[in-house]
């Protein structure tokens, strides 16, 4: 009898630990290693792999590009990007201060950690495409040239989508709805409104 009494809490604790670990991993943005088939567009440059790039469709002359950049070796930095459809391209971050979101250039670019990855996704790091010569529409592709500090340059093509989970119709409820979410730092965004109760 006692066996059960003691064992169950252990199992529960293990599960709790597991869930917590999963949570940390997902928030840290490492969650696409076991993504079910499909999508999975990849480009390789030395130790770097660019995974699942996409560009958001737009009705204006600005939009954003997203992707995950992984390194299986040394650290590197995405220092700039360009595209034939954009007159101006910048690397942007989203900063949330109290009730306000600010989008601004990320000084120095996006660091890719050694044997790690950096995720460019809605609500955080993104490649901002401005002065668009044409408005990318769903179903098209956009050419992007990425320049890294060490690995050099690579030109990739990215599909145009309405959102991270649109198009391919991934069942994204299975990994927590808000695909569109999250920031690379996992610290900004969520929760700030309650923190700053006063407004």
């Amino acid at each position, binding site marked *: 009898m006692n066996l059960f009494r003691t064992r169950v809490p252990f199992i529960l604790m293990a599960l709790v630990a597991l869930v917590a670990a999963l949570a940390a991993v997902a928030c840290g943005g490492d969650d696409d290693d076991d993504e079910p088939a499909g999508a999975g567009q990849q480009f390789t440059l030395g130790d770097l792999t660019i995974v699942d790039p996409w560009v958001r469709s737009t*009705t204006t002359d600005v939009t954003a590009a997203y992707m995950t950049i992984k390194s299986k070796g040394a650290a590197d930095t995405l220092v700039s990007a360009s595209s034939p459809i954009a007159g101006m391209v910048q690397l942007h971050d989203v900063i949330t201060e109290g009730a306000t*979101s600010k989008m601004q250039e990320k000084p120095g670019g996006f660091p890719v950690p050694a044997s790690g990855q950096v995720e460019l996704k809605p609500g955080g790091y993104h490649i901002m495409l401005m002065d668009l010569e044409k408005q990318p529409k769903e179903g098209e592709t956009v050419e992007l040239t990425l320049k890294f500090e060490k690995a050099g340059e690579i030109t990739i093509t990215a599909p145009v989508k309405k959102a991270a989970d649109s198009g391919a119709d991934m069942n994204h*409820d299975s990994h*927590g709805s808000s695909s569109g979410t999250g920031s690379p730092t996992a610290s900004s965004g969520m929760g700030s409104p309650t923190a700053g109760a006063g407004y």
Partner: protein
Amino acid sequence: MPRTPWRTLALALAALALVPAALACSGDDDDSAAGDAQYMGAIVTPPIEKPDAVLMDENGRPFDLRKETEGYVTLLYVGYTHCPDICPTHLYEISEALKKLDPDIRKQIRVVFATADPERDTPEQLKQYLDTFDPDFIGLTGTRDLMDQFQVALGLQPATRTDLGGGNYAVNHAAYVMAFTKDNYAYTVYPSGMGQKEWLNDLPLLVKKGFRSE
């Protein structure tokens, strides 16, 4: 209203609200624990009163916010169409959630996108932009003064610009969507990071029970 107990309750709820929010981020879908009236939105205290304002809608017609949204749960977001990241993410997540809602619930919700960039966001521009998400979304614009006042009435700082060079600029704007219940107050807001899951949980509650349930 009885200020102190309410505030305490709201703070407690706020703390609770962050738990599911954190879990949502983890991708762990265990929301079976969410009991009655368990809101996933962030609780805002004091609640935000729906401004009594007449602005211009996406068809170029005057839009009396209080009158036109009377009796609806109203999701209000202040953004701008040249916003490449957060605004389209919020609008997309809302539009997808609305498609999945019971039509009886859906028809009791209105979605309003008010621009913080009236210089670029003409009614036509708003209409073209919003139609890509849901043709029922309402776009509001007006003079710079009017839109600034509108944001102040919502407890926000009037949006400022960040110059990006080459004539481009970003607009620093509200980080969250406000959800006004039928009593014209918003008790919950939805920051970047909250999406369909939170909407699908909260919208039926907001429609059926409002926030302060009997």
